[in-house]
């Protein structure tokens, strides 16, 4: 029950520069890849990046991959569910492995959550938080982890204080520790970009999205 997620801040100046480069899209897309015509400007490139990065984060754990090749992932289908929500299917081409995603797209960010089984999308807990504009990436990383621990603890019905921690393995992949033991039953994914922090985890006991709307936090 693995999950990957990726957030792209659309107003971040570096992202605007990157995603406006003509060759950028060529470097990450395949000639046969579908185009989501509803997305305009940098959103098209940013969406494809978010899809492929979150797919890599998932397959990195599932297949122990060590390097990211955007062209190893192909967007196969994309349907708009609601005004800001899209559901997609993706293939990891080398193994013909199908993956499934939900993506929230608005004028501020693109956030994708990727899973191995379409049914798992019903059990995704995810959140996007907007921090004050000058908050450092380090601070955002710490804060989003804190919020994730609180919400994982709440889902598991335990008091978080000192009981759940987040650590990283040698490949930089974050995972949960409960009372200093690896919590294998609950996979997490963390992402931050620009003013935004985001996370996702899968928990099968409760079927709810903690918060689909952006929360603003001043630090």
């Amino acid at each position, binding site marked *: 029950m693995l999950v990957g997620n990726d957030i*792209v801040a659309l107003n971040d100046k570096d992202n605007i520069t990157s995603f406006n480069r003509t060759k950028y899209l060529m470097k990450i897309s395949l000639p046969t890849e579908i185009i989501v015509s509803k997305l305009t400007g940098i959103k098209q490139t940013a969406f494809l990046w978010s899809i492929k990065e979150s797919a890599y984060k998932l397959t990195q754990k599932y297949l122990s991959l060590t390097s990211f090749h955007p062209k190893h992932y192909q967007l196969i289908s994309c349907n708009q569910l609601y005004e800001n929500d899209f559901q997609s299917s993706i293939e990891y081409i080398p193994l013909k492995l199908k993956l499934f995603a939900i993506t929230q797209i608005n004028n501020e960010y693109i956030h994708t959550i990727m899973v191995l089984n379409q049914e798992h999308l019903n059990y995704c807990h995810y959140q996007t938080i907007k921090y004050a504009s000058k908050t450092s990436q380090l601070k955002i990383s710490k804060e989003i982890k804190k919020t994730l621990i609180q919400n994982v603890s709440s889902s598991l019905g335990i008091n978080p204080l000192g009981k759940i921690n987040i650590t990283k393995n040698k490949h930089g992949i974050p995972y949960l520790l409960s009372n200093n033991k690896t919590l294998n039953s609950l996979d997490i994914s963390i992402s931050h970009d620009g003013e935004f922090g985001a996370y996702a985890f899968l928990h099968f006991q409760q079927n709810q999205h903690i918060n689909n709307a952006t929360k603003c936090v001043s630090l």
Partner: protein
Amino acid sequence: MSTNREIIIGILKRYTFNEEVWNNFTDDFHVVKDLKINSARMVDIVLDIEDEFGIEISDEELDEMNSVKDMVNLLKKKKNDAGR
């Protein structure tokens, strides 16, 4: 005249947001893990290197671009291949 290594470090510096990551820098530092460069900027780095050196980097060669040492070696290899 700048060496390939210096040009590559110059390109990487465009995409690091924290000067401290260059403390104790070695050519083996991992671009994403150690220099904390956003993975979305890796594509920019590849494009910048292609523009700077007038070469094309294939998808397979991305595996050989994890550190400055890798990048310098890749350039050397491509130069040798072109000279054959």
